[in-house]
């Protein structure tokens, strides 16, 4: 941001972020196997949630079908790896590109729609996408059971097969996404997203090509989600339609709102709450989601701006 004066707490927060990330590097050394996978999954979902934030929290578009791009990336890697024998790292850029392209193609016809209508259209795309996956479209998606036997990434001949190795890969990717978000904030593209969210009409009279930037937001958000998708496919060594159903999109949507729109700590916190906590409280079994529903209502009513809103307020 361009403000030179920073209150004390903001200076502390700037250090907290990298500190938290560095702490994460100790995870494979200090924690047990199941915790390592949980945190690896957290890193992956955090990336997807941040990508959702680009479209929803920053550019202000009601995207409730974001799981599609996550799935496109995951399936791209799965198909290229298991059916064409591509090494994982080779599939990664393709997954990102294809996801971004899907983002462009899907968003282009609908970005002109008013908020609620856009929301419903994205839901529609999500449902059709999952249906297509389950129906084994093109005979490559493996139907309702999905695709198994996805390999591990190889780096200079080393197989990254251990939990710890995969965790580091995910954690580094998360750092890359965080850096990307920070660059976005300090750049023209990031600013334009804010203008569009705040007041699209005023933005256009200042020369902003709203349609271009809206599609760009979807493209970037989709690309990042696709990148996370590859990591997800590797983590689970499989992909199935059930991981990308519309309710996952709803969760991503809620994370951004509950955590705090356009707030990196907020989105990370939201991801932790919405994905990690249920994992941890699996013991509560059937009461989990009931409690969740109540929690969502309570959080929104008590703190509509989110738990950790962007910038000034805390």
């Amino acid at each position, binding site marked *: 941001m361009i403000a030179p004066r920073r209150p004390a707490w903001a200076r502390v927060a700037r250090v907290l972020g990298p500190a938290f990330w560095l702490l994460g590097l100790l995870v494979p050394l200090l924690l047990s196997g199941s915790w390592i996978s949980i945190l690896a999954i957290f890193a992956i979902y955090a990336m997807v949630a941040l990508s959702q934030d680009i479209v929803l929290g920053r550019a202000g578009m009601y995207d409730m079908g974001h799981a599609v791009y996550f799935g496109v990336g995951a399936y791209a890697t799965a198909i290229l790896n298991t059916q064409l024998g591509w090494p994982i790292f080779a599939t990664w850029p393709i997954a990102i590109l294809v996801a971004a392209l899907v983002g462009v193609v899907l968003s282009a016809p609908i970005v002109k729609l008013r908020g609620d209508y856009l929301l*419903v259209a994205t839901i*529609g*795309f999500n449902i059709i996408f999952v249906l297509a996956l389950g129906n084994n479209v093109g005979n490559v998606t493996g139907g309702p059971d999905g695709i198994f036997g996805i390999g591990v990434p190889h780096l200079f001949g080393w197989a990254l097969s251990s939990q710890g190795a995969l965790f580091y890969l995910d954690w580094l990717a998360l750092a890359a996404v965080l850096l990307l978000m920070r660059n976005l904030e300090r750049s023209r593209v990031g600013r334009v997203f804010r203008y569009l969210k705040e007041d699209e009409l005023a933005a256009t009279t200042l020369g902003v090509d709203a349609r271009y930037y809206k599609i760009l937001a979807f493209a970037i958000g989709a690309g990042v989600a696709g990148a996370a998708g590859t990591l997800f496919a590797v983590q689970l060594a499989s992909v199935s339609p059930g991981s990308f159903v519309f309710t996952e999109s709803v969760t991503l949507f809620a994370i951004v709102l509950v955590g705090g729109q356009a707030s990196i700590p907020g989105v990370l916190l939201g991801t932790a709450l919405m994905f990690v906590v249920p994992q941890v409280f699996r013991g509560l079994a059937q009461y989990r989601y009931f409690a969740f*529903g109540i929690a*969502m209502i309570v959080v929104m009513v008590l703190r509509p701006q989110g738990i950790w809103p962007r910038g000034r307020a805390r």
Partner: protein
Amino acid sequence: MDVVLQQFINGVTVGGFYALIALGYTMVYGVLKLINFAHGDLCILAAFIGLTVLTSGLGGANAGALLLAAAFIVAAVAVGIAGAVLEFTAYRPLRKAHRLSAVVSALGASMLIENGIMLIWSPEVKVFPANLLPDLTWKVGSASISFVQVMIIVGSLILMAALYFYVHHTRFGTAIRAAAIDQDAARLMGINVNRVIVSVFVVGPALGAVGGLFVGLYYREAYFNMGWIYGLNAFIAAIIGGIGNIPGAMLGGLLLGLFNAFAAGYVSSSWQEAITFGLLIAILLVRPTGILGERVAEKI
């Protein structure tokens, strides 16, 4: 020709309960510009409540029509009250906040109701016993129509007509329409907008409750996460007709029911849902305000 007629009958039946559920969405959206994501779950809650009443053994073995009526009334009243409670706890506190906060609250409410149903009634699919309704069918040309179908069609028509009359020919109905057009102006005209909102959250879910119980009786089953599917479909119906527009919801429900019935004949079942959503996207791209919806101008 007989196939077409049969599909037509099926389509109108399904259209009937879609219309009833769609009305709940459209009434709430009209007044609050909010998509009540919990609505579908409320309607399915009615199916469960109705089932409980119908299998309670009240009134003995030959309770028949009276028990059936009781089931509908209890379900509608209970869900109507639930709707009002929902408004009061999850939406009213967020009236001044960012619109999306209410959306998330609605999603939380949906989760809550869905899982509440699961906790109370069990995660398994509940079957509606076979002897709840008379096993009658009539011939219509070379097609046939069953008792439950007649009940649904007639019931839906009566309720829709009643709602239409209420909204267009009573003072309070006019207040509802006024609040839907311009809440602030309505308030300035002395309309108690809070009362309008509460009643919309009672009537909408109550109508949807009847629709939900119709769903249960028609398919003879109910499961706790049914709410989303029927909710989304009814929501699509509301959009087709023009969200916020009451006759639009009725028309949309009918059209969606017919569309589903006819598409089922030509498209494999695994793609059927895709067709429905494809229709939704097509409508959104070509005429997002729906068939009967109006363009609302914004003063710049």
